[in-house]
């Protein structure tokens, strides 16, 4: 019974955090894009637009959910549900930290410890294409259908390099279980280079990482591969005909997919929760120092706030004090074994997410034939060659 209670609590916690994070990812994305383009971004709702996700949610919930005439009602309603359900499933295999004991209960910092973790992620992501294809087809609109067909072709094509790029680090790690993968990346070469698969001997997996990230951009339908929703040609692609909460479901699914992909990349290539340099050289003090510095900066800026931004005088110090309190939590010895690995994991995930947004703000969109040509004539052969080389090196050195 204990097992069920712990699982339920963890599932609730992860779901709540994940969905909130999805909502704030929209805010982060808009802010980063805005700053890339020298704009302030969302600013009105709450201090620096911090309550924007909430107002977006209220807006989407109170909008009328239009079901257009001549749609396939069942599939039309099924598609967004499927999208969000599949996007939320794969997070269950991601370990956010090592095992720890609390109140006499030992549990992992993740929902499950599955032996076929990476296969589950692949399986669920391969089902994700149905949601988009169905949504596009059931809408009974030419733009949606084009978007759905494009995405089906694109996701099938980019799944191959994605899977091949996953296989090469697995050759080094010898396991399909995410927790064992991260544990396998423990330790340091020459005492300071982390033994993450992206750096590891005998064959650093830099190329696999790049191929994985490129394919992940395509799998999550992000710029520069966002052909399924290319607004200049297809209005909004497969979700043209969707409104209200069904639109929000597609949106949540997209962001949840980005988070999952970044988590998988972190666990597979970037050493999961392993710190950047050994704890002996003080890596445990990085989180409190960084968060504390951020808090102090907010306190300083709060006192220097412009006259026109009167709210900043209040909101900056409050958030700064919150940050300082958070930094203090990292110094409590009881919480350290949980919080510090979690900090490293999340910081790597956030860096990857920042790259996703950065690319969106920088690169133009591919043309459809270029997209397919790139997948089949460059990415797939490159992934194959990389896999062969890795296999050869592993076979020769072991």
């Amino acid at each position, binding site marked *: 019974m204990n097992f069920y209670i712990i699982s339920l609590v963890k599932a609730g916690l992860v779901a709540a955090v994940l969905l909130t994070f999805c909502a704030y990812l929209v805010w982060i994305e808009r802010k980063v894009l805005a700053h890339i383009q020298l704009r302030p971004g969302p600013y009105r709702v709450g201090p620096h637009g911090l309550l924007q996700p909430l107002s977006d949610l209220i807006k989407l919930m109170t909008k009328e959910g239009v079901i257009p005439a001549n749609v*396939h009602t069942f*599939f039309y309603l099924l598609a967004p549900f499927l999208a969000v359900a599949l996007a939320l499933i794969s997070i269950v295999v991601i370990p956010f930290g090592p095992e720890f004991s609390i109140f006499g209960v030992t549990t992992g910092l993740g929902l499950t410890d599955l*032996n*076929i973790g990476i*296969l*589950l992620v*692949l*399986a*669920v992501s*391969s*089902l994700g*294409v*149905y949601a988009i*294809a*169905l949504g*596009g*087809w059931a809408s009974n609109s030419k733009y949606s*259908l084009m978007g*759905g*067909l494009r995405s*089906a*072709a694109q996701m*099938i094509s980019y*799944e191959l390099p994605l899977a091949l790029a996953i296989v090469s680090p697995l050759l080094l790690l010898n396991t*399909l279980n995410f927790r064992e993968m991260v544990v396998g990346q423990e330790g340091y070469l020459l005492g300071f280079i982390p033994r993450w698969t992206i750096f590891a001997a005998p064959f650093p997996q830099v190329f696999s990482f790049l191929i994985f990230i490129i394919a992940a951009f395509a799998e999550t339908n992000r710029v520069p591969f966002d052909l399924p929703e290319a607004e200049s040609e297809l209005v909004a692609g497969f979700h043209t005909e969707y409104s209200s909460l069904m639109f929000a479901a597609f949106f949540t699914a997209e962001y949840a997919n980005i988070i999952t992909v970044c988590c998988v990349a972190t666990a597979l290539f970037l050493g999961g929760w392993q710190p950047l340099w050994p704890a002996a050289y003080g890596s445990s003090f990085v989180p409190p120092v960084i968060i504390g510095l951020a808090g102090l900066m907010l306190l300083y800026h709060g006192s220097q706030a412009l006259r026109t931004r009167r709210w900043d005088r209040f909101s900056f110090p409050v958030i700064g004090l919150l940050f300082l309190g958070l930094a203090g939590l990292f110094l409590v010895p009881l919480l350290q074994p949980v919080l510090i690995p979690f900090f490293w994991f999340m910081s790597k995930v956030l860096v990857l997410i920042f790259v996703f947004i950065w690319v969106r703000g920088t690169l133009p969109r591919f043309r459809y034939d270029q997209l397919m040509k790139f997948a089949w004539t460059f990415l797939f052969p490159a992934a194959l060659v990389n896999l062969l080389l890795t296999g050869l090196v592993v076979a020769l050195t072991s």
Partner: protein
Amino acid sequence: MDAILFLTFAGIAVACAINLVLQTHPISSALSLVGVMTSLAVLYLLLGGSFIAAVQVIVYAGAIMVLFVFVIMLLNTQGERMLPKKKVMPVAIALPLLFSLIGVIATIVATQVPSTEVVKFGTFAGGDPLTFGRAMFTRYLLPFEVTSVLILIAILGAVVLAKKEI
């Protein structure tokens, strides 16, 4: 727990299979088939085949069926006429025969398979990726290589068929 899980997913599988046969639109049939495949994957998990369950979802539901759905959308056909008039008589004969086939198989299975043979989750762990890979790349290496040739031929055939005007 085992029995509940089995009955749930067996029920889903049978319901989806019936739906597959009865639906007039190919897309509905295709999605029912995906339902059958994913619930069968859960049954494989119960039978201790964790790797084959994952492969079932990845290959069958995630690749083969996507191809079907893709083709159906590409052709964008309407639902078929269910049955021409002259076919009603054969169907009326065939259906009872099919159900008696199920009955015969069930009787044979029930009498031949000893009732002491039970499936309990966790009693067989030989279906994990490690054992599977060992067997695949030692005892079954030649068949494995032959399938790769088969796949190559299939790819070439598909490309030729799709490209040339016949």
